[in-house]
């Protein structure tokens, strides 16, 4: 069953068109990842879905609720983890959760129970009475998530919930989200970390410059790569010798299969082991020096690179 349906979403900020016709849908119980580099339009898309501002054009439906027209109806069923930590710093974790719980319509013993339960989930029961301002970045992020799940939302939308935190907190968060999803909560997760999206999401949309450039299950996206690994050769003076290298490689690979990036030559191939020695040999022939060789299994990063010629992270 389809829970969220987003059609031809556009948003302009003055001259700048941040989102240029985004279309996707999310099924109930699914975890959907929106992967894209900084400034791709992830947050802008999310902000329209959560009803913070209306789209310039396009439609958003949660079940049959028109989110653009009746945002308050939809917002009751959505839990949002904003990209920025949105908590009252001078209040304790307990007070913050209690406040957001009440805003989402909980009260009385049900509220208390829920707050305790969420504190347990985010692993902060022992710090509940401490001011949020005294927390580490990772702990704040966890409270930030806690505030979004108090009311058992049908749809949990998370906008880069792991930005700038230690690996330990990050793992905790990822596991928590995975758990919630396995218990039946539908999740939309945006990130520019492909590992997170790969780990969490059944279906993925890759967004760049306000456009979804590819979408599908991890498997489908990998198939787009025709299961090709990446061979990354770091070469001294690759730029100066690009023409020579080009010439040498042209005999062995089709143009689509290799590209230059910074001081690297990247070659896409299904069976990297088979071509590696030949490749190294050819490049060395041009008189350049290879300083490192790296083979990367097909992943979302390579999909993005393949589609845009750029890395996800700069």
């Amino acid at each position, binding site marked *: 069953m389809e829970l969220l349906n987003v059609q031809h979403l556009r948003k302009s900020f003055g001259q700048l068109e941040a989102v240029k016709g985004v279309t996707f849908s999310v099924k109930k119980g699914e975890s959907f990842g929106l992967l894209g580099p900084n400034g791709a339009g992830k947050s802008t898309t999310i902000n329209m879905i959560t009803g913070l501002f209306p789209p310039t054009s396009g439609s958003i439906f949660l079940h049959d609720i028109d989110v653009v027209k009746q945002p308050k109806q939809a917002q009751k069923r959505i839990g949002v983890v904003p990209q920025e930590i949105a908590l009252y710093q001078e209040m304790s974790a307990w007070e913050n959760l209690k406040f957001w719980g*009440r805003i989402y319509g909980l009260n009385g013993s049900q509220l208390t129970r829920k707050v305790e339960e969420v504190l347990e989930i985010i692993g902060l029961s022992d710090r509940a009475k401490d001011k949020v301002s005294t927390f580490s970045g990772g702990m704040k992020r966890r409270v930030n998530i806690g505030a979004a799940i108090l009311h058992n939302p049908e749809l949990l939308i998370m906008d880069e919930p792991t930005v700038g935190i230690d690996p330990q907190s990050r793992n905790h968060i990822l596991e928590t989200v995975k758990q919630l999803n396995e218990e039946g909560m539908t999740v939309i997760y945006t990130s520019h970390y492909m590992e997170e999206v790969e780990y969490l999401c059944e279906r993925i949309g890759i967004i760049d410059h306000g456009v979804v450039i590819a979408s599908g299950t991890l498997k489908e996206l990998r198939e787009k790569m025709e299961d090709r690994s990446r061979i990354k050769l770091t070469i001294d003076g690759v730029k100066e010798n690009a023409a020579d290298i080009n010439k040498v490689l042209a005999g062995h690979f089709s143009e689509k299969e290799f590209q230059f990036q910074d001081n690297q030559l990247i070659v896409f191939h299904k069976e990297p082991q088979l071509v590696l020695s030949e490749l190294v040999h050819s490049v060395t022939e041009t008189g350049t020096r290879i300083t490192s060789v790296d083979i990367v299994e097909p992943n979302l990063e390579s999909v993005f690179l393949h589609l845009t010629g750029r890395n996800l992270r700069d």
Partner: protein
Amino acid sequence: MRRIFPILSLHLKSFFKTPAAFVLMFVMPVLFSWIFGGMSVNSKQNKPVVNIVADRNETNTEIIKLLKKDKNFKWETETLKKARENVSNDMVIAAVAIPEDFQERIIGQRALFDVILQKKSQDYQALNAYLQGSARLISSSYQAADTLEASFSDVLAGVVNQKGIVVERQTIEKNPDNHVQVNLMVVGFAIMFMMFGLSGAASAILDERRNGTWGRLLISPARKGEIITGYLLSYFIMGWIQFAVLLAAIKFMFGSSWGSLSYLVPYTSLVIIMVTGFGLMIAGIVKTKQQAMALNSVLIVSTCMLGGVYWPLDIVPEFMQKIALAVPQSWAMSGFKEIMSGSLHSGILLKDILALLGFTVVFFAIGLRGMKFE
């Protein structure tokens, strides 16, 4: 509407958690009032002492009672010798002697009292005026006794005991107004500190916008109306708590009266709403809390000066009084004066109320427009 309450209580709570706000809203105004209000009240409590020198007889007893009706002085009966000493030692401002030939002097229309003094101080001017009035009253009573064929002391006693009789007062002192003055000063401080406190609180919206909780509220099921109402109600309550504390403090410290509560309560509410609007307006036209604080300080202090919060407007030149009409504090103070002095000219009060309403509407219009909902 049930989401108003959590927002309201959160803001009250966070307000009372901020020690600075606490100091600003309660400690400072009470301290200021205590110091400045105390000054003018204390000067009144150390009443100037006047000695009375008189033989003991029925008539003199009544005259002394009459004199003692002026509570602005402390009257002490002394022997002539001691009284002279007191005057020369500056212990008393003067000694008033009731002469033995008192009745003859009435008939002869001569000065009734002999006054011993060293210098004609301001207090003496007041005393002198009072003595003149009393003398006139005494002579009239003497004539009345004559026509009524009653004894002079009986008639005097009748005059003295009559509650309604107030001895003519030509004093230059403004003592009857003293309490109102003190009250107004305290109210002035209350208004100023409330403006600081509430606009500080209102500028917290700017902080909230920056730290994301504002955005989070907007995408929660809480409606705009609920959010705004929650915020504004919390400011209103903060303002009232501050005012109520001050009212209590004033009563406790100076024992002064507040005029009719049925006027004071709604009027104070209006002033608090106006001040809330002011804070909202400032928060609406600047970008950061720091800017709001800076603008607040400048605007509040200057308008309080212009509006007669620090000193009565009667003492400033006329053009300044005209300028004062452009700031809400002058109207607020004027209304408080009407209510607390008990004079309650409904015309003046109505004008004050209408002016305050006008300011309130303008402030809110600007303030709410500046509240960003995206």
